[in-house]
């Protein structure tokens, strides 16, 4: 009998303890409820250092404003992104920033957040119903392609043996805009490069993962000497450059990347001629300044959910390797960004052509 009578109390204690530990339903005080709460779903793709930094900057800016901040990682997985949306809703966040590494999940995410009446900011990949904050990827691709085209025109009179595209198919439309945009930009400067000179390999946006495929591609074109490389990002372009180095053919390979991940610091590959900075780690400045701050103040801005008419436009910043040498590396940029006056963007702080 004693055991029986103590069971409900015991169970209650366990539930109470578990609730406290898990933080479920912990927002009970009036003060806590009044505090604005920002949710951030970081991409969680191991490809890139900036993915984690995007969350770090958002956290710092939220803390500067005295908000609650909750960060979850989508682990580069659509199912996890959906699960995280449920957690954000359950936790009662007031707004969410969503890095969209998994665009296939976006319609379902939009439905969930809309039913919970939670405004969402999406980075770089547009989704109806989400505020669009980001770069014009096609414009960034075209700018990078034109810059590389000018180098090829000057060095090789627009007569490369190969133009290699480092694709990242899993990025979907972003890959088409950036890599395809670079090809189109290059064609603007050098329109007469024959079709058989254009080749592609799947880099998955990572230097080491794409390396064997790039090596095999170069082996299949053993006579190509003058090679130009475009791609989804710096990592993919570096895969081709590293392959050429391994095969003893690095003397005449020139790459131009996207995202600026490997164009700063003291370990820059000399064959990476340039890149296009988006300063991805600092996107939260745009999101908070133009969307979340007005929402927190009770004045939600009009929903602008397309890349053509975005809620906030991020400026692409094409830079040569020489120019990039003057740009601080990412940790230093983040530090300087957080010390700058509120609303200042990295483009304004660091882009040499700004």
């Amino acid at each position: 009998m004693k055991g029986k009578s103590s069971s409900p109390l015991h169970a209650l204690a366990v539930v109470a303890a578990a609730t406290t530990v898990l933080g479920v339903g912990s927002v009970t005080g009036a003060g806590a409820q009044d505090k604005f709460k920002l949710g951030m779903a970081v991409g969680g793709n191991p490809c890139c250092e900036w993915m984690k930094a995007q969350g770090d900057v958002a956290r710092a800016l939220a803390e500067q404003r005295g908000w609650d901040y909750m960060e979850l990682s989508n682990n580069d997985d659509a199912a996890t992104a959906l699960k995280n949306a449920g957690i954000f809703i359950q936790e009662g966040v007031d707004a969410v920033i969503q890095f969209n590494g998994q665009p296939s999940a976006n319609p379902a995410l939009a439905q969930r957040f809309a039913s919970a009446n939670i405004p969402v900011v999406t980075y770089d990949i547009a989704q109806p119903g989400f505020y669009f904050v980001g770069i014009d990827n096609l414009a960034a691709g075209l700018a990078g392609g034109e810059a590389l085209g000018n180098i090829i025109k000057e060095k090789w009179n627009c007569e490369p043996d190969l133009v290699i595209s480092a694709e990242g198919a899993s990025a979907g439309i972003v890959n088409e805009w950036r890599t395809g945009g670079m090809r189109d930009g290059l064609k603007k400067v050098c329109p007469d490069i024959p079709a058989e000179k254009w080749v592609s390999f799947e880099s998955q946006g990572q230097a080491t993962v794409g390396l064997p495929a790039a090596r095999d591609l170069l082996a299949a074109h053993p006579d190509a000497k003058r090679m130009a490389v475009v791609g989804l990002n710096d990592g993919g372009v570096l895969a081709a450059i590293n392959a050429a180095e391994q095969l003893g053919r690095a003397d005449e390979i020139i790459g131009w990347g996207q995202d600026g991940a490997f164009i700063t610091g003291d370990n820059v590959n000399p064959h990476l001629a340039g890149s296009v900075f988006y300063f991805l780690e600092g996107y939260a400045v745009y999101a908070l300044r133009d969307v979340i701050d007005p929402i927190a103040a009770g004045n939600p801005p009009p929903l602008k959910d397309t890349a053509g008419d975005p809620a906030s436009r991020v400026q692409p910043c094409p830079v040569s390797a020489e120019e990039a040498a003057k740009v601080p590396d990412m940790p230093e940029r983040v530090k300087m960004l957080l010390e700058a006056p509120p609303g200042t963007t990295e483009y304004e702080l660091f882009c040499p052509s700004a």
Partner: protein
Amino acid sequence: MADHAIGHSVPEARPGMRFRLEGLGTAAVVALAWMALIAISAIHRPDFLSHQTILAIAFTMSIVGVLAVGQALVGISGGFLDLSQPTSLILTALAASRLLAAGLDPAFVIVLTLAIGALWGFANALIIVHGKLNPVIVTLATNFIGLAALFLVFQIAEAPIDSGFRAFGRGSFLGLPNIWWPMIALVLVVGFFLPRTRYGRRAIAVGGNRFAAQARGISLRKTRFAIFTASGVCAGIAGLLFAASSGPFTPASGTVYLLPVIAASILAGVSLAGGRGNIWLILLSVGFLSTVPTSLVFFGLSSDWQAIFQGAILIVAVSIDGYREKWVAR
């Protein structure tokens, strides 16, 4: 002479003898498949037979080959598989990159990196032996833990680009990549000593029948420690070669190696049941598997096909291994 060197006790001699004699059929099959692949590719595209192709295949072979030696040692000794290799590869590559960037002497970096690899393998063995746990589950778990821990420590790493270490990784010797030579040396040395030393024969005996081995006084614990530590050292060597030859890498960069390494080990005739396998055959299996993706590109197929072929080859190899086990049991 070799028979004399096998050991003092008859029971230990048998696995060694069988170990050295078997595998000839496997070698013939894999060698024939490799030659056929090269011939078909060369007929389709005569420029397949270029120095560039040899370099591309040899680079692919190098890291996979070293890891496959560690994997084969674990398999032969009855540990089934070491699924923690992706993490130990990146852990040691990270250590080498960071230590070199800190300006340490390369010789010291090499020793320290190998020690870290050995420590990783030793830690695996510690959990397996003292927890009395399945090695596959333990190494699967340590791989997850290690990967998560690596993500906490770094996002991107790269050995100093202008260092002699990187120049070594990009360079060639006698027409083959510098990083290919440590791989071949490791395969030859381990393949020679495994069936010819007491420790090697004990590992084979434990893999063949651990109860019989224990009855003969062979310590399963010591064998597990030795083998997993050796596997860790192999990962350390692979980590050094990886850091020297690859560009910037992430904590997850090692995951792509696991499938080809396991496939190479099984295709080389290493029995998943333990007790059987010939390390030298790894040269053939790794060579064949490394030629497949290069060949696919010459046929105009995208690199996406690579995983399909490797997966199919793995299934065929496992099926052959299963058939072989049944045949031996008869």
